[in-house]
């Protein structure tokens, strides 16, 4: 186990219904990297992200975040406030786009919430719809607002669950660029779940392949794609896997 890792999972199990949703023996996520979680639908990517976000407790095992055990209750509130998860199907609250973007800051009672929200809305090209009701947005706009409300918090860890799945190519480029820009400004660890292999190659520096709730292989993204150690990784990357 790498002691400098931001996340360290040990013998973690999560059960949904009769089957294991996730079973991980040892797994680390390094600090400051864009870490990709690859795998088909149902591989356990979203479950792993919810555990990493401290939203759900594992049924067994320990998740350590920055050296401390992460639990899913109020004891880890301070740790949870250093991270945020952008959902594949985000839900916005009743109110304007601006209200939704400011929401995470309001939860933390941040004083200059309006200024920070304005800046992130501008960065993601959402200023023109800032006063619009969140109920009137398209799927792509909802996804962008969800990303804006996550970025405005200025988290140490950004957990992304297929954040560009509803977006057209121009918006995908915008999101990827926004994450790149923010990482140039400050240290940000990103865990990016995707089944888009092209995107994984573009944005992640290191990645893990998940299949049936288990981690098959973890490696630098380039190695994972060019010299996969596990034949299942090669099958997944080459599109030969039928699932």
């Amino acid at each position: 186990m790498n002691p400098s890792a931001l996340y360290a999972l040990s013998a973690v199990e999560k059960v949904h219904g009769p089957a294991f949703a996730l079973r991980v023996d040892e797994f680390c996520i390094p600090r400051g990297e864009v870490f990709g979680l690859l795998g088909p639908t149902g591989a356990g990517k979203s479950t792993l992200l919810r555990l990493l976000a401290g939203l759900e407790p594992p049924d067994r095992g320990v998740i350590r975040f920055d050296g401390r055990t992460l639990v899913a209750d109020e004891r880890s509130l301070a740790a949870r406030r250093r991270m945020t998860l952008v959902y594949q199907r985000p839900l916005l609250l009743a109110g304007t786009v601006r209200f939704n973007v400011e929401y995470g800051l309001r939860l933390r009672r941040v004083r200059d919430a309006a200024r920070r929200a304005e800046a992130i809305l501008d960065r993601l090209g959402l200023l023109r719809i800032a006063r619009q009701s969140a109920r009137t947005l398209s799927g792509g706009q909802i996804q962008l607002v969800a990303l804006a409300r996550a970025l405005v918090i200025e988290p140490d860890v950004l957990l992304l669950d297929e954040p560009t799945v509803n977006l057209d190519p121009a918006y995908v480029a915008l999101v990827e660029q926004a994450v790149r820009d923010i990482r140039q400004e400050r240290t940000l660890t990103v865990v990016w779940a995707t089944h888009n292999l092209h995107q994984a190659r573009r944005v992640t520096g290191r990645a893990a392949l998940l299949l049936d709730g288990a981690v098959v292989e973890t490696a630098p993204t380039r190695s994972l794609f060019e010299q996969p150690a596990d034949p299942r990784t090669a099958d997944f990357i080459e599109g030969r896997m039928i699932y």
Partner: protein
Amino acid sequence: MVSSHCGSKVCVPIDISDFQSIVWLSVRVSGAAVVISSLIGIPLGVWCGVSRRLRRVVLPLASTGMALPPVVVGLLLYILLSRSGPLGWLGWLFTPGAMILAQSLLALPFVTAITMHSVGSVPEELGMQVKSLGGSGWQCRWAVLREARPGVLLAVAAAFGRSISEVGAVLIVGGNIQGHTRVLTTAIVLETSKGRFEFALALGGALLVLALLVNLIVLRWQAGRVPG
């Protein structure tokens, strides 16, 4: 004292101060009943609404409670509050307190059931997403309640409607005593039985105006104030 006119002849006069005291007592009794039933019913509805298991048990009970016959509630309270009853020591029978109690009991299932339904309609994932934004347990619950706000306001409006229009229970436990426990509905019954239809109609008009006012306020809250 204002005389009401029936064609060319002058009928029985309407006592303005009597009218005012009836309207004011109705507002006080029903208002207090709505406050009490909301203070109990909204937290109960939220608590049961977020738990699928509790909702399955409590929702049918609360929905059945919405069909409680007011005269039966009035009768049971009468027995409980009468001098020889188990709560007779309170001395509440034929007082506004007994009427508030009766109306609160009748309004409580409305507030609970509608709140529960509204909270249950908010996607379960919403609380989790607020948690992922750094929300504490209370902040997540508050966010769910905020999303359910239109339904909760509807619950309060329904409770007021149930209370202000109720006649059977308040007649039994209040006694329709002039200047003491006479409210709009019981006064309408009395005035109609006495053949004073103008006064009864005036009271009915006041009842409708009150109900309309409360619903307008609630609708304004529901539609307005998009946080920005």
